[in-house]
């Protein structure tokens, strides 16, 4: 065979015109083989947490059932059972260690996806294969992103079950620990938020890795960016998803998340603390209990009688799912955007 015939395009006619691309499914093995160590690590982390939640969760549910079934209420024996419930799983009450899961996945799975390739120069191999660099990037990011989001979603179902006893109405009257479903640190562990945060952390990692092109700095940047975003969302943004309810009454449910509470004068101006104290100076002694501590309801009534109004803005717990979908929605949109930006960078990236 001479060189010329071998080079003749007509020898391989299927290469002309419509070139059938390499099927997407072939990336499944490639992605698994390249990231199996990190994926195994993620699986081990999630499985470990699942076992922990399961074991502690069984104790917690057991203690809760015992505490609520105890009769007669208020007895010493019941008090002991209530204490047992309140002490069980104390390290998880505020969300604690579960908060770091999305950050770890973003940093140790998301950030290296492109950073390691760029740092080691293996993009020059990966991006010159027939599969094509944009398809390679898209397949890798989407496959890994979906896997970690689904895994996180599975864990958050267990988390939701774990925290159930804390949200029951009537806990407070029994002095059982009560948690607010909208509380930062808890809200994002349940529902769809946990999976969405994990996906977003992964997408942040992917973009940071593409921009920074070095694994370790990309990991640090991912952790910082995630912490900033999660902090800003929990501390401020989440409470503004929907216009808060406003009331001048005391009918705020215990489970509501109170945003602001402020006394106003008759003319509608905020009342200063000193003005309120002055009014209360003239109050009869029975407003104050032992040691001069004001009894809150009577103090409230006294101030209302004197023309003051207390305005409270709050988010009712019934908005939990609306908030979940809002948070899940914008995080999904953010993740898609971050992946799109990553793709755009990959397209024009100087290697």
């Amino acid at each position, binding site marked *: 065979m001479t060189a010329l015939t071998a*080079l003749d395009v007509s020898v391989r006619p299927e290469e002309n015109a419509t*070139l059938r691309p390499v099927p997407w499914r072939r990336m499944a093995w490639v992605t698994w083989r390249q990231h199996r160590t990190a994926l195994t690590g993620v699986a081990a982390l999630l499985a470990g947490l699942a076992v922990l939640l399961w074991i502690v969760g069984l104790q917690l549910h057991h203690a809760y059932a015992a505490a609520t079934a105890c009769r007669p209420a208020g007895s010493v024996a019941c008090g002991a059972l209530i204490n047992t419930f309140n002490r069980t799983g104390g390290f998880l009450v505020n969300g604690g260690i579960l908060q770091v899961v999305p950050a770890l996945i973003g940093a140790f799975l998301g950030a290296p996806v492109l950073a390691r390739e760029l740092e080691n120069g293996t993009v020059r191999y990966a991006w010159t294969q027939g599969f094509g660099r944009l398809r390679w990037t898209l397949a890798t990011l989407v496959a890994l992103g979906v896997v970690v989001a689904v895994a996180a979603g599975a864990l958050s179902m267990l988390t939701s079950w774990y925290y159930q006893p804390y949200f029951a109405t009537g806990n407070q009257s029994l002095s059982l620990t009560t948690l607010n479903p909208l509380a930062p640190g808890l809200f994002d562990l349940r529902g769809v938020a946990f999976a969405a945060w994990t996906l977003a952390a992964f997408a942040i990692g992917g973009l940071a890795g593409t921009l920074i092109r070095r694994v370790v700095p990309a990991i640090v940047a991912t952790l910082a960016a995630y912490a900033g975003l999660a902090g800003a969302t929990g501390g401020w943004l989440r409470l503004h998803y929907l216009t808060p309810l406003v009331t001048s009454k005391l009918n705020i449910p215990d489970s509501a998340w109170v945003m602001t509470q402020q006394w106003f004068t008759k003319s509608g101006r905020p009342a200063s603390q000193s003005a309120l104290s002055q009014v209360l100076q003239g109050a009869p002694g029975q407003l104050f209990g032992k040691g001069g501590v004001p009894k809150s309801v009577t103090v409230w009534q006294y101030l209302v009688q004197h023309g003051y109004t207390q305005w409270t803005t709050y988010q009712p717990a019934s908005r939990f799912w609306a908030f979940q979908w809002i948070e899940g929605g914008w995080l999904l949109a953010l993740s898609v955007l971050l992946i799109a930006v990553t793709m755009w960078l990959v397209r024009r990236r100087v290697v």
Partner: protein
Amino acid sequence: MNVVEARGVSKRYGRTWALRECSLAIPAGHVAALVGPNGAGKTTLLNLAVGLLAPSQGDLTVLGGHPAGSPAALDGVAFVAQDTPLYKNLSAADMLHLTRNLNRHFDQAYAETRLAELGIPLKRKAGKLSGGQQSQLALTLALARHPRLLVLDEPVAMLDPIARHDFMATVLTAAADDGVSVVLSSHVLAELERVADYLILMSLGRVQVAGEVDDLLASHRMLTGPAAEAATYAERPVVHVRSGEAQAHLLVRASADDPVPRGWEAHPVGLEELALGYLREAGAAALPGPVRGRDVEMSEVTK
């Protein structure tokens, strides 16, 4: 068909021009050597050809008109990058599997046979192979794709003489037996004569010379004569002058039929001599066709 065709291609990194108005056409069926000093723009040109980079200006096509980096181009062009990047924690077998999955064509039997011949254990991690074995593995991955164009960036720079010889032997076998066109860059001039039948000389981001080696050798002579007369020689274009105390050596564009001035002797030039002559004169006129300048006729270059 031209396996690589560049029209006024420039590439800029920030304010630095890595490549300036490069026009070039490498016909199919050659082993083309891209030669030039470090920083001449060889790697940039090759990265453009395989689609890793996009030109700042101009356009570059491969395999007879497919834009570099397009699906058809990626399918037909195999690239072994500088320092042969491989996934160090993957075994040779995994690298084969990976490459098979990422390409439309992959000749598993060929790849396994070759690795067996080379004594590269399939189960060994790529990072644990010697430098020569890593290069051979990368080359095997590229050739098993049965590319129509094989692009090699400084493939032998890091290799010892034996590994270098074995590597180039594989490349030449592929070129001869399967008709693969090869474009390779090198700053090692020795051995080029044995390997390349097409030469592209680059310096300072420009193409100086491009042409078939036989044509280039036939159109250049080395004139040896009195050093005093070297400056006055003007009958044929002089590429480079190397003067000793008594004698001067002039690399000139002249064929064997051109007359030799009295007192001078003409010798045929070797590829290394020719390349060195041009590389020492970064501004020397590019040959055989005027490949510098704005309105380049591709036919002149490819002729």
